């Protein structure tokens, strides 16, 4: 933590960055994103278990890009998101100073290559709770799964917290905003909600960095992250590709192998 703060102050003082994006104390026990824009604000930075938000979601925002070069505190999931954003050409190599945080250790990564190398050293694992939930879903009958999601989606009001919190949902004009034609209804009724979550899942298959922020963001507690995570795992299982691993784009759904298995096709 102290190393982080020290480096943050240095970066700000030397003018290498205009802001250090990290975490600060929020309401109650919550942690929140915080832009330290002066060396004096660095003291507010905190780093602990409660710092879960994937700050990479801010990296592509106009408002943040307008600040100038920013240093970003990046736990593993954020690192994965950042490299995927680079692969998808939303961030240029060197746009950000990446303060990679891994179990308390800080490492500053200056380039996409360094980030790629750094990420390659780590094993990715799913959250135990999510694994249990996924297994539970898997064990359900098809009808129960349908009922489960219908019940969950009945609370959805399309506030788009899941979308907007997602680092990979950077599109300025989301499919949901397309009205010529209006593929997905705007209204948050049953079919509108179902189609929204289906499309969101498909859009993140092969791109999801499995940070789980969408699920945490949902104000009504729908575990939407299970959808994208399971889609991402499907992609990995089927094609061996994983989002957030390489700085050069390797998107499973716009590449193919002639011998991809096709048992389901008749």
């Amino acid at each position: 933590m102290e190393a982080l703060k020290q480096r943050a102050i240095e970066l700000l003082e030397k003018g290498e960055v205009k802001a250090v994006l990290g975490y600060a104390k929020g309401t109650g026990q919550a942690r929140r994103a915080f832009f330290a824009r002066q060396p004096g604000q660095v003291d507010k930075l905190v780093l602990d278990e409660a710092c879960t938000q994937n700050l990479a979601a801010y990296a592509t925002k106009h408002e943040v890009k307008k600040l100038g070069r920013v240093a970003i505190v990046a736990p593993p999931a954020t690192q994965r998101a950042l490299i995927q954003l680079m692969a998808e050409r939303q961030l240029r190599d060197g746009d950000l100073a990446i303060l990679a945080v891994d179990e308390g250790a800080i490492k500053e990564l200056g380039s996409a290559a360094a980030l790629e190398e750094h990420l390659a050293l780590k094993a990715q694992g799913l959250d135990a709770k999510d694994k249990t939930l996924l297994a539970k879903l898997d064990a359900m009958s098809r009808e129960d799964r349908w009922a489960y999601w219908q019940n969950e989606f009945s609370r959805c009001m399309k506030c788009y917290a899941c979308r907007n919190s997602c680092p990979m949902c950077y599109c300025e004009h989301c499919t949901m905003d397309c009205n010529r034609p209006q593929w997905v209804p705007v209204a948050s009724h049953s079919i509108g909600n179902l189609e929204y979550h289906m499309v969101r899942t498909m859009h993140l298959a092969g791109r999801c960095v499995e940070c789980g922020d969408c699920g945490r963001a949902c104000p009504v507690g729908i575990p939407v992250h299970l959808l994208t995570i399971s889609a991402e795992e499907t992609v990995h299982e089927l094609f061996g590709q994983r989002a957030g691993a390489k700085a050069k784009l390797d998107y499973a759904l716009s590449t193919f192998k002639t011998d991809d298995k096709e048992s389901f096709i008749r």
Partner: protein
Amino acid sequence: MSRIGVFTCHCGENIGATVDCAKVAEMCKDIPGVAYSVDYKYMCSDPGQRMMQEAIKEHKLDGVVVAACSPRMHEPTFRRAVANAGVNPYMCEMANLREHCSWVHEKGEATTHKAADLIRVLVEKIKHNEPLFPIKVPVTRTAMVIGGGVGGIQVALDIANGGHKVVLVEKSPSIGGHMSQLSETFPTLDCSQCILTPRMVEAAQHPNITLMTYSEVEKVDGFIGNFKVTVRKKARKLDEKLCTGCGLCIQKCPNKKISDEFNEGLGTRTAIYVPFPQAVPNKPVIDTLNCTFYKTGKCKVCEKLCPTGAIRFEQEDELVTLDIGAIVLATGFKLMKTDVFPEYGYGKSKDIIDGMQFERLASASGPTSGVMKRPSDGKEPETVVFIACSGSRDRSKGVPYCSKICCMYTAKHAMLYKHKVHSGKAYVFYMDIRAAGKDYDEFVRRAIEEDDVKYIRGRVSKIYEEDGKLVVMGADTLMGGEPVEIRADMVVLATAVQSNEGSEELAQTLHVSYDTYGFFAEAHPKLRPVETNTAGIFLAGACQAPRDIPETVAQASGAAAKVVGLFSNDELTREPIVAVVNRLPAPAYSHCVGCFLCLSACPYQAIEQEEIKSRSGEVIKTLARINPGLCQGCGTCVATCRTKAIDLQGFSNEQIYAELMTL
């Protein structure tokens, strides 16, 4: 609402017997937007088309659904008819009442209803059709042929004789390719150089052909009809204009012991050299790696002796950018080296040679002037073993495919050997004899029957040297796997044909696809064998797959015909069924976010980057742009695009959505 006309065709009894066409026409009147609906016996007949055209004018129709047969059958007919009535042809759609309805369903209410449904879907589609106009792409009528072997020469000559300019690029100092190294060719045993050199000269002298030897393609931009190709002209260290090709420099070059590529290492050459006497152009190059001057800074004998003062030690590579309309790849192949066969002692023995080396040994212009001498000691080999399928059809060597030419040239080699060494013994180990082709099987038969070449069906498991002999151990599978041991003086391996050095890099430079083995991929294995997936780039010869000379030449002429066809007009006209990236006013510019996930989805490399710049030249946004010259309209990118920034003309999101909403 649009003013749509629906024209339901009975197709005689074909539709009329099953579908109640009059009722369908009546039902269609109730579709909002349908201004006119009628049925007719034969819509495609002259009176039918005339009736349609009159109705278009009379009812001021702006869209037409012809409910008749398959659009794959008559869509062009009706689109033409509609265009003749002054409506954009792409405002006409066909409902397939015949193949998809009347012919496959029983007569009845349900079938009639289905017919009306099929029309309804297309009426809704047409409401979202836009007039489309054929895409015109200007064409630069200059072709580039990459590779100056027999294939490349043939392409160049055919295009040049068709009246178009050709730039023939060859990376070695002379054109001619592998064929110039061959002694004789199967199945006629005529002298390879005798048939090739006149064509080389013809190419060099053709007013429409520009030769660029000792040159390589460095970069390719643009698209069909409009490529910009940058060629690196490697420095010959010689002013080609001044050089007369007298050869004095070569005679006097003190450095004579350099392994000769043209003779496959069986002979030597000087540091300033022409690859072979009949080289075109007959201008030497200086091999800077071996030239004494470049190694020590001293010598310059050639410079001193050159009567025209043509030597240029300081000459640098030159980059030339050319406007090219079409490119033909004819880069040929290479043979697998003998050093990858552990079972044959990694080719360490000088007397285990490959097929091309044998060609040089047999060639009258070769290092032995065509006298059979084995490389190790120059002795005449009394027993020669030829091993077919050396590496080919061998998964362990990474070559599961058949190299196709080896059966024939091995037979030829055995024959040539027997013709030169009458008392010699020739053995051929083979897996299968693949001699399909005009006079091919007869040729192999001749080797066996007239020239007494011993064919043994089986594999060679091991070769080792013993007492100046090569002991070849194999098995004869036709004799129940009986072991065979032959003490040979020389072994010729018919090694596998592989994609040429640098093929993959070249493919990447040109954005053409290639297979696992580095051979360039044709656009369609049956129907478009000489085209690549990249419009305007064509293939000839062994760069696509192993091929012999006749096939290469045939394919070359095919590719040339494609190019000449392309060059037959100033402009290339293409169907406007292409994808487009939407454009909007500032500040959005487009719904495209520039993620370029579409890039690798495009089979045609039609997706490019477009930078939106501010007045001061700063890049504000990078967007995808689809090159209409390359796009073939499959729509894969459309389905990949999350923001729906890409759409496919003719099958747009709005059109398909409208169709779906009708279901």
